[in-house]
């Protein structure tokens, strides 16, 4: 569920002291009913429309074509108009904005205590619930026209009417969308996803589904390696930020559960009925027929100004979706994963963190000044540079026993070495403890332990105690004692 929606729901739940406000209610009602008027406004002023998510007209055309191709391949002609869809979405966006404002207002009034609290609260709740319901229904109907299983004209659902999209000449709209609007659109889209609607509406995502063979968390190796393709030899696709950051790319059309891999989704689908258990349903969806010449796909980063963005002068395309995801997270996102061992290293990709954690705190090459190095040659370079610095050797080579220590970086050198020493000490203490335990356990005749004790006492003696030899002859012991006397 998108964050903002979540936020709203939370607010609804956590605002028990809402104040009834008639004006507000009226406004909402008005808003609900004034759909038609809004749409006409919008159509009259095309500049207000949040149209283009894709900045590249060529690309869009391609994508559209692709979507159509796919539909054609499926052997079914769909009568849906993207423009209508867009109108619907814009409307939805507007509505959500209003609702947001409403909830904001409610929060603002929360502090004012009034007498008829409960009553007002219920009213508000009902209002918002109704509002949301209408949004949801509209959304479903919007998406429903895309579903192969649904009737192509389900515009009338539960009495909520969508306006017929009369205008077909909107064409390519100039890009005037502000960030917020775009955000909302995508939120809506996410909402769609979570509401049992397949993502086939978005052709890019469709590509995404097909090419996502690997896990999200996998690391791409070839991001660093540059390939030099001639500019025209591949097609550039650009995912939006939200698509890149979406946790799941595959959604169940029935329950809405999200998955990272389509295979997992297919496995999940089995639980929804026998029709999903057929070999055909479980089989990997076939790729595009190989007869067509498949143009190489390369990806562009949506971040303007980035070298990976297609508008950059020295544009370097990204090879796969995975590359896009990791690149975007690494370069343009906050590094939210913090290493639990050193508490200093931060990562934006989980796999990077895991890789780091594998090595963090291990094989630390330590200098006497307290600086640590991950590599021995770096340490020796440091020692070469600084007079008087020496390699610091952990006590009695306890490299193996050095557990995941968490030395804080700000500590002084002495503290740090003391840390190491302490670790070692505690280890040895543990060992002793175990030994003691064994001793306690072995108070009965334990041959192993008794042997141990025996040997210990033996090594402490200067001369070998003859009493321990039961099998030695008497002459032998005599010789021993004689030898002792001689010495």
């Amino acid at each position, binding site marked *: 569920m998108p964050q903002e929606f979540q936020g709203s729901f939370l607010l609804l739940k956590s605002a028990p002291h809402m104040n009834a406000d008639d004006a507000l209610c009226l406004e909402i009602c008005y808003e609900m009913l004034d759909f038609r008027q809004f749409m006409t406004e919008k159509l009259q002023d095309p500049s207000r429309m949040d149209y283009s998510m894709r900045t590249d007209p060529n690309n869009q055309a391609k994508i559209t074509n692709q979507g159509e191709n796919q539909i054609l391949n499926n052997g079914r002609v769909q009568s849906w108009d993207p423009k209508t869809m867009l109108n619907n979405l814009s409307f939805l966006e507007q509505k959500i904005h209003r609702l947001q404002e409403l909830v904001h207002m409610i929060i603002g009034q929360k502090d004012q205590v009034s007498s008829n609290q409960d009553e007002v609260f219920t009213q508000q709740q009902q209002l918002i619930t109704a509002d949301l319901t209408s949004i949801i229904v509209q959304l479903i109907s919007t998406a429903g026209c895309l579903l192969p299983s649904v009737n192509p004209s389900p515009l009338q659902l539960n009495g909520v009417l969508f306006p017929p999209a009369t205008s077909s000449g909107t064409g390519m709209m100039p890009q005037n969308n502000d960030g917020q609007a775009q955000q909302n659109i995508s939120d809506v889209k996410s909402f769609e996803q979570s509401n049992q609607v397949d993502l086939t509406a978005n052709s890019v995502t469709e590509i995404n589904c097909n090419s996502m063979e690997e896990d999200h968390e996998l690391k791409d190796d070839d991001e660093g390696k540059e390939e030099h393709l001639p500019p025209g030899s591949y097609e550039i696709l650009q995912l939006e930020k939200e698509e890149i950051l979406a946790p799941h790319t595959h959604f169940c059309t029935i329950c809405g559960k999200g998955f990272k891999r389509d295979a997992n989704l297919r496995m999940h689908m089995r639980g929804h009925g026998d029709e999903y258990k057929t070999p055909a349903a479980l089989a990997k969806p076939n790729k595009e027929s190989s007869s067509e010449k498949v143009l190489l796909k390369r990806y562009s980063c949506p971040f303007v100004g980035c070298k990976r963005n297609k508008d950059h002068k020295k544009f370097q395309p990204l090879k796969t979706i995975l590359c896009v995801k990791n690149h975007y997270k690494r370069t343009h996102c906050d590094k939210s994963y913090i290493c639990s061992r050193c508490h200093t290293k931060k990562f934006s990709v989980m796999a990077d963190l895991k890789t780091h954690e594998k090595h963090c705190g291990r094989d630390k090459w330590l200098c006497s000044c307290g600086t640590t190095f991950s590599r021995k040659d770096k340490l*020796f370079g440091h020692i070469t540079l600084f007079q*008087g610095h020496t390699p610091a050797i952990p006590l009695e080579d306890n490299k193996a026993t050095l557990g995941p220590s968490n030395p804080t970086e700000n500590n002084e050198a002495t503290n740090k070495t003391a840390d190491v020493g302490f670790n070692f000490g505690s280890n040895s203490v543990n060992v002793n403890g175990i030994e003691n335990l064994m001793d306690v356990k072995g108070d009965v005749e334990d041959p192993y332990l008794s042997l141990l004790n025996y040997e210990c006492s*033996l090594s402490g003696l200067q001369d070998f105690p003859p009493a321990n030899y039961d099998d030695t002859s008497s002459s032998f012991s005599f010789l021993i004692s004689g030898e002792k006397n001689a010495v």
Partner: protein
Amino acid sequence: MNRMEMLNEELIFTILDYLHEDEDPLALKSFSLTCKSFCTLESRHRRSAKLLCPDLLAAVLRRYNRLSHLDLSLCPRVDDALLTTLTLSSFLSSLRSLKLTRCRFVTRLGMADLRPNLVELDLSNATELTDSAASAISRAKNLRKLWLVRCKLVSDMAIGCIAVGCSELRSISLKWCLRVTDLGVGLLALKCTQLRYLDLSYVPITEKCLNSVLQLAYLEDLILVGCLGIDDDGLASLKESCGTMRTLDLSNCQNISHIGLSNMTRGAGYLHQLTLSYGAAVGTHLYPAFFNLCFSCFLKLTVTVDVVKCLQNFSMLQCLKLDGCDVTSSALKMIGNWCGSLRELSLIKCSGVTDEGISAIAKRHTGLRKLGITCCRKITSFAIDCVTRSCTSLTCLKMEACSLVSKEAFSLIGHRCQFLEELDVTDDDLDDQGLKYISRCSRLFSLKLGICLNITDEGLIHVGMHCSRLKELDLYRAMRVTDVGISAVAQGCGILESINMAYCDKITDASLISLSKCGKLKALEMRGCPRITSVGLAAIAAGCRQLAILDIKKCHKIDNSGMIPLPQYSQNLKQINLSYCSVTDVGLLALASISRLQNMTILHLCGLSPNGLAAALLACGGLKKVKLHTSFKALLHPSLLEHMESRGCVFQWRDKPFQPQATPCAGGGFVQKRTSNVIEQV
């Protein structure tokens, strides 16, 4: 009034200076036993001490408080406690040099107690020395010489500590330190700028560290035996090497050819000694490197000193060892044409050495002192003729297994090489006549006549008559030698120190009785002499008080009665081989009371019981190494073995089958084995 008291301190100290322990271990003892004042003076004079038993350390330190050199390498167990005693001793402020070879029990705690004023430290063969222990060495700021041979656990980290701490180091040996890499050596070269001697044999280094090593301003000796990581490609990147280098040893560096060598020696104008034993194919390709060397030497000198002096100093390279290389005849001729003057040339086991090559070298390098042509099987008397004619100052000639050299060659040697001191004619075609000529070399102190099957007593009588300086005589499998010859040698060579009569099966107790007059005899090997009995051994024990090494393997007639006199007289005995003798528990126990005994080989003693063996092992406190048959491993109590090991004794288990008493024949197998042994020692 005691006249001795009239001698002042300086005079007594001068007298003491002449009493060398190596020559006569009892001299100083008897001196100090003369009177109390002598005893005090001796203890004040003594600078070095070699301990056999660690228990005596405290007493030694109390008595000799001016010791500067302490050798604990013979102590079977050197541990932390011992080192702590050493440090705590207030008497030992003067200690400068400490030898701790084979101390397997020293840890970080012991090393941390080392005195910071040490100048020399030998920790060789401390195979269990850890990094943390070794890094404690860095506290000795004044350390000049450090030996870490075969410290297999020591890694770069400890070497780094040492490099930073001991910046005064002059000599260091890291031979067989298998965990040291380029990083450690590189840091060492950067931090210890005073280094003169650097031994990196068998260290897994590559050329990466050599750049900094060769930049050392004072480096004189660089030993790189068996550094397989160094190859031509790496050496190509080297910068100018240091001009002070005198010795370069590249033996067993199989990946270096003449190209790498020329790169490495570029600018090394003062090179005195070059060893390339067992390297890669050194064919005719070799001489460009030598030329390079000569040429660079020339250039350097013309720049610095005047031309005349340059010509005089042209012969900087004095010692060349090419053991085991494939040397072609033309390469040898090239060496012959080369204007330097070699003192020492070793071509041992070089295939392709011919008469022409040797004669070319001999004509040019007339100052040759030492020549090794062992196993150069193509060499004939012609080469020996040339060598003896030109190189009259030859002192050492090793020509083992030169089977084509005829009898006449030995007369040439005898006539022309008056300065000859060492001669190895093992496995040559030598007869009594030849030996007679050889005996004319009256300065001989080492003569090896092994497997010379034609020599008899007659030849040995000549040796006994003329070679009075002989110290070492090898008669291994000279099977025609009898008591007469041995007696002649024993009579004539009074300072004989080592004799090998192995498998001379004709000799009897009479030989030993005559040898017992050689009071300096230290090593006696007579394995496989079945006629020798305990009587002879008893005579040796009574006469040769300095005997340290005794091999009586397969002397079946020697029994317990031969062992009894040994502890009584030969208290210096260090090593004994008793295999196949008729000694039983009693004899072994008697032997065990020799406090210096460190090394025992006891295989196939029929009369030995496990209990007797256990008793002997326990009684003999100084044991360091015992070779036993595997069957005893099960018979001895495991805790006994553990106890022995904790005392510092190492057991070596052998599983050789019992060889029944038979006449050993001098078959090809024996000869082959013998020859290969010699080569390995070289």
